[in-house]
């Protein structure tokens, strides 16, 4: 059973078909990249998967279960995490608080429990402490120690991207959707990112679906690549197949 299966989804905006009868599936443990020209419908695809949009046609299923009509938070609770192209951090919170929000689904403290947090042993305090440990782990992995108590709106662009990745990791998802994670990173930082994404897959066993325009990176780490154009599948396959595909070169890569 594939981890994620998208079949025949269509999403239109006014007259524009952002996704047009698109189908593909992602296997567990894969790093699967989605590429395509600007405006091809890649982000729209992600938005359909995590239910920000509902496609007009077609179905999306996750581990065999249909998720097309769930709410966004419902999708998240099944173990699908994502990052955003334009950075959607909680801007007036600190890095730490942003990351703790990644733990939201794993925590249970309700209003009453949290109101009655009076001593170390109280339920809310215990839970905070426990989940802080997980968060610190992610902080260590992503080298975010220096930014722990900074407000995220004051962080440089690249660090914000890392915090967003960290927040998604804190959810301990099974499927991670990354929308242009390397945009705005320099060479060195991108290298780091490549390691991290590999680690994420190898050590945590998370399946990764990634949208990215940096071909070097895409080719480097993808198991398979999907190319879409005008919302339709243009090509799908192994990296070397795809980058040599003539239509992909014409529409997306350009002549070398």
């Amino acid at each position, binding site marked *: 059973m594939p981890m994620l299966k998208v079949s025949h989804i269509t999403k239109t905006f006014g007259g524009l078909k952002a996704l047009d009868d698109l189908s593909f599936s992602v296997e567990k443990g894969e790093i699967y990249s989605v590429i395509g020209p600007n405006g091809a419908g890649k982000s729209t695809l992600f938005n359909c998967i995590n239910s920000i949009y509902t496609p007009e046609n077609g179905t999306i299923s996750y581990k065999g279960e249909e998720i097309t009509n769930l709410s966004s938070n419902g999708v998240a609770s099944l173990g699908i995490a994502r990052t955003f192209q334009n950075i959607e951090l*909680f801007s007036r919170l600190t890095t730490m608080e942003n990351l703790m929000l990644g733990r939201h*689904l794993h925590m249970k403290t309700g209003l009453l429990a949290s109101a009655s*947090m009076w001593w170390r042993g109280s339920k809310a305090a215990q839970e905070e402490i426990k989940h*802080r440990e997980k968060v610190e782990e992610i902080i260590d992995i992503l080298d975010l120690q220096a930014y722990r108590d900074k407000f995220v709106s004051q962080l440089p662009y690249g660090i914000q991207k890392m915090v967003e990745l960290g*927040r998604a990791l804190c959810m301990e998802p099974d499927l991670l959707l990354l929308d242009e994670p390397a945009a705005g990173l320099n060479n060195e930082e991108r290298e780091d990112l490549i390691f991290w994404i590999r680690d994420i897959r190898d050590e945590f066993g998370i399946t990764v679906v990634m949208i990215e325009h940096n071909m070097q990176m895409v080719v480097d780490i993808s198991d398979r690549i999907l190319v879409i154009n005008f919302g339709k599948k243009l090509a799908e396959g192994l990296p070397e197949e795809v980058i040599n595909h003539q239509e992909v070169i014409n529409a997306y890569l350009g002549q070398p």
Partner: protein
Amino acid sequence: MDMKRDYYEDVQLLHGKTARFWFFLLLITLASLPFIIKGYYVYILSLMAVNVIVALGLNLLVGNTGQISLGHAGFVAIGAYTTAILMISFAVPFIPAMIAGGLIAAFFGFLLGLPALRLEGPYLAIATLAFGLAITTVIGRVGFFGGHMGLSVPAVRFESLGLTRDESVYYVAMITAVLLGIFARNFLKTRPGRAFQAVRDSDIAAAAMGVNVSYYKTLSFAVSAFYAGIAGGLWAILIGFINPGLFSFILSILYLATVVIGGLGTILGSVLGAVVVTFLSLQLENVQTIPGIGQLLEAFSKQFMTLSGLPNIVWVLTGLILILIVLFEPLGLYGIWSRIKTYWKTWPF
């Protein structure tokens, strides 16, 4: 890295000896004040405590969840009327009546939270304004609620504890305010509070983290209304008389102003805002009696304005103070406070 930090420190109510010292000093002061100061000031402190409670709740909604309410006086009204009617018609003792008032207000908060799910900005402002208006209109029309005439609220007095009426109200109000303040602080530090703020900053990302946005939006309305309802009950026994006119739109706006000039999204801001606004609203009229300034104002009035209009100086000053605080300190009184704190910490550098 073995130098593991104690994560409890971050959520601990009072971290460090100094914090504990000041907090207990504050509690002791609050507890002993009624024996030191005159009755009128005890009354003012009680009034401040009541307004602190409203501000705490409203700040949760406006500052932390990012929703506006121009109808908070409506929740205060619900709390006040529930408390009063339970006490008058059903002989319920004050404390349970007050809690019932809070709960019923919370229920209405939940109801108002539903349309609020779809609305934002001025649209939400109008919806909440309409709510506040509807509550007072209905109360004013229905004889059971005392109509426009209003209700006299029974006095509360804990005689067995040897307290006078003023002292009784003072202690209930103060204890409630401190408790609710700590509650607010506790859930802002933990999961529900973070969810509120996530909804404020980006509802889309919040949902992607698994935060149920609708639930937290309505919850925040309900909790905020609960605070207002409790404050309503306290206010009712404090002034001893309620009528629909008390809970006007202007009052809602004053609450909002309290929160903003105190500092959005902070507990201390709510407290400072409520204390300062209450104080100003009671004391500003006395500028006319300050020697020197009083004569100056009179002379000015005679020359350019009217002498009989001079009492309006209260509004002029209130307006200016609101403007100045908000303009020059976007974080409100809380901002001023934290600036002073950093100044002392870094002094003399």
